């Protein structure tokens, strides 16, 4: 870890000025469960770390008629234990329940979870000066790409590691951002960015902006959700493939499907073709399979990760069938 200075922020308004114009100047820290590892591995070498936990009033879960508002500093444990989340947003509850370990969930925040940096072993190792660190190549190409992306066309083949992000995206959540010019709101669907737009980052945040809140609209009546996660190891493991599914089914017919895959692309990956296919159709086993096929139609696996296509397809099929029944 490189030496750095450490600042306790005391208000949201103060944060943009404490941050800089470059990611190398300063970064924010909330739970620190991702950032500290990144710094130890020299994947992040900020000159200054701005602690957000010293800002009061950013950990809350508030429910109103419109839905749920979750403060950026709310820990994953608090999200997991919240009754409104577990009763009305099972997709989010289930997603958070399979993140890391209880100890990590006690520290990690919901905003931090969606802002996680890639777990790619080339990105995380000091040995590889990869594209995402300003280097010249993506080592997954021609390397060992067992855990890399099956969607997207580079130039980086990282996968987005968050479990909460697909769930929030499936729920149509909005991210509240604060920057030098004040607050702004962005739909989760518009928040994440593919490598061809910004090779160094995975979302639209600029170096002097932070997330302050995530708001989730109240799901419509007859809407059901679930989260499926396949990981090699049950104890503390990132998803090989995950799926957040939220579906509105009336009398066996799908009115709306929101299907977001995790672990398969540089951003949480909305299976648009499958959603379009399902809309207005009566759900049968054959149609669940067709939706699953549609979900992976655009998959372009690398030499070592073709198995992810099979898993993604099967998860879509399983979720569609389960939510229609």
């Amino acid at each position, binding site marked *: *870890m490189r030496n750095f200075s450490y600042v306790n922020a005391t208000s949201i308004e103060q944060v943009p000025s404490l941050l800089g114009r470059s990611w190398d100047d300063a970064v924010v820290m909330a739970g620190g469960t991702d950032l500290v590892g990144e710094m130890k591995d020299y994947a992040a070498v900020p000159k200054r770390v701005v602690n957000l936990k010293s800002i009061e009033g950013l950990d809350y879960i508030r429910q109103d008629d419109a839905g749920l508002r979750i403060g950026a500093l709310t820990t994953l444990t608090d999200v997991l234990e919240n009754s409104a989340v577990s009763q009305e947003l099972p997709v989010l509850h289930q997603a958070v329940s399979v993140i890391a370990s209880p100890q990590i969930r006690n520290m990690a925040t919901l905003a931090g979870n969606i802002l996680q940096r890639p*777990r790619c072993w080339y990105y*995380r*190792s000091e*040995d590889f000066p990869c594209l995402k660190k300003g280097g010249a190549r993506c080592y997954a190409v021609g390397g*060992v790409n067992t855990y890399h992306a099956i969607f997207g066309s580079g130039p980086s083949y990282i996968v987005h590691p968050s479990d909460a992000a697909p769930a929030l995206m499936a729920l149509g959540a909005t991210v509240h951002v604060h920057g030098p010019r004040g607050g702004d709101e962005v739909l989760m669907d518009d928040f994440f960015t593919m490598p061809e737009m910004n090779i160094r980052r995975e979302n639209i945040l600029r170096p002097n902006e932070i997330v302050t809140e995530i708001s989730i609209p109240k799901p419509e009546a007859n809407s059901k959700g679930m989260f499926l996660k*396949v990981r090699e190891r*049950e104890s503390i493991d990132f998803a090989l493939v995950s799926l957040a599914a939220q579906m509105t089914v009336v009398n066996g017919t799908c009115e709306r499907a929101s299907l977001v895959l995790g672990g398969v692309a540089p951003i949480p990956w909305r299976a648009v073709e499958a959603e379009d296919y399902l809309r207005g159709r009566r759900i049968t086993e054959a149609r669940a399979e067709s939706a699953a096929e549609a979900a992976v139609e655009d998959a372009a696996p690398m030499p070592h990760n073709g198995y992810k296509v099979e*898993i993604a397809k099967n*998860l879509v099929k399983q979720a569609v069938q389960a939510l229609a029944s």
Partner: protein
Amino acid sequence: MQQKMKTVTITIQEDGEPREIQIEVPDTGEGGWGDLSKNTYVNKPHTRVDAVDKVTGRAKYTADIKLPGLLYGRILRSAHPRARINRIDATRAMALPGVSVVVLPNDDPEVFSRECRFAGQEIAAVAATTPEVAEDALHAIDVDYEVLPFVVDEDAARDPDAAQVHSDRGNVGEPRVGEQGDIAAGFAQADVTLEATYRCQVQSHIALETHGNVCQWEGDKLTVWASTQGVFSVRGELAGHFGIPETNVRVITEFMGGGFGAKFGARKEGVICALLARKAGAPVKLMLTRKEEHLATGNRPSAVQHVKLGATSDGKLVAYERSNYGTPGVAGSANIPGAPYLYEVPNYRIEQTSVFTNAGPMAAQRAPGHPQAAFAMESMMDEMAEALGMDPIDIRQMNDPNEARRNMVAMGAEHIGWKTRRSATPNSQTGRIKTGMGVGSCRWGGGGGRTQAECTINPDGSVQVKCGTQDIGTGTLTLVHMVAAEEFGLKIEDIDVRIGDTNYPYSGGSGGSTTAASVSPAIKGTTMLAKLELFKKIAPRFGVEPGELVASDGNVFVGSDPSKSMTWQQAAAQLGDEPIFFHGQWLPGYSDSGVPGVHFVEVSVDTETGLVKVDRVVAVHNSGMILNPLTWASQVNGGVLMGIGYGMYENRIMDPATGYMVNANLEDYKVMGSTDIPEIEILRYDEPERGVIGIGEPATIPTPASIANAIYNACGARIREMPFTPDKVLSALAAVKEG
């Protein structure tokens, strides 16, 4: 009731030469441990004596040692898989505030080489006032490398045109051949001949405590706190390296966080720590990081085994041919057992080679070579059973020459419900999740020796036992307490036991499943003979022979007339002011070697995700006379889990394009976690008449093989490559679907 005596032959060292002598010892019957039913401690479960110290943090491990003026060492390692160092310059590092010393290749060419043969090889080291400064200093040492071609994949390395790992020999070592009978004639007798290739990956050791030492010089005397499996081997290596007498080196290992065969001798990091401390004139602590553990401290070599097996239609094995290779990295051997594993085959030929690659060197790892051999053999036995339409157990029983193992197979099969609960037809269930059952077996050696001990009985009745063995986490300290307390009829807490220090009597390294069988007979013999010396002093007061006395429940009394009794303290008081001091050693007759083991496994296979879950393991093991069933069971549990880890998750992954290990951490190198642990049931097959036999290694051997067989039983997918991750399971399932 006179204690019978017997004569045993022991070997002593005289002027550096072994000499056999005869001594008289009490005759305690077959197996040496007497009537176990009367025991208070030996063969009874006992919690570790240091359990509370360990869970409260009172136990001080090497990493916890703090000394005045302590510096922190770090090692600079080669940044390339193959390179030559043209120039190395530590000027910038030395200029950093807090950096004390740097050692460079020229400071010790025996430790450091300018020829780098793997990414992670030691090339320089620093010591600084904090670990953070030491790490900064590593980044401030400028190295000018001439980067050379490399090869990290064992298949690629076999190509004659591949980059050469060493300049004085080829990548492929001399073949080792083992043969018996006539394989051509054997295969001619076979009704069924099967051929298959099985692949085992490289496994890292992952001791919880990383390798490390604290070294402190006073003049030419060196004290070392070491995380080691052999304090005396550390002493010997350091004395040799620095050209000082062994008496000048003291090595201490009071508590130790695990070792699986890669912690013998001082090793490079130990010598480097001592070098830094000597140059700095201050004590230095040098603990390796997890990344360094993966890169440079040893691993289980890979194994690629082409196996051909022939059997008659009734299941008798008649011919076996195996050609195998594996990579030990830059040095060592990847050989596995050189005869057909477990089973009797009259005609066989085995040819095996080690293939050097530009990767960290191997080190003996928990049952070296055996899990790999068991995986191929036990998979192939199932494949043969299937081809012959036999039950996998029947073909094993027919060809297994070991009676105890045959009994253990039957015992485990009965317990798990092999005949009643297992479907004889693979892939017979419908639905997404399919369950199956599999079996695999093992053998191991063990055995004891090479241990001395001292016992002092003081006039106040206090008893001290010293032995230089180290407790690497297996419970050796507790065993010493138990054996001594049993012998003296005292309570465990009445015995002052000292271990883990070269100032105490010699004991060999803790490896090869030999520690219990080495230490316990030495403690038994030493305390038994020390007690006899005490009895000689007090027998005249009762008018009996020393051998008629018994020590039990804190008293010493005449065996035939317990009314003639005194307390232990009263007995010891008869010594006046001169304690009994006895220096003893390992005695024959209390231990044995050679054990079988069998694991039965139940798994669930998710046929849509390729996820395999090990649901249940029934482990049947045999350790002759078990000293402490609690610590013994811990060893079996640990062995089972390490085997599941090897079979299911763990895999050193080298990037072929760059030559770096990509998963040198504990996130991507996956060791099983608490929620991955199945139900484990342990069945004991006791043979107390054989004495003590070790358990550390056999318990890990058969797990991957039995998982593979259970996966096949569940879903009909034969997986011949470890670890059994979803990618392999799904592709094997796809092959089943296509028929």
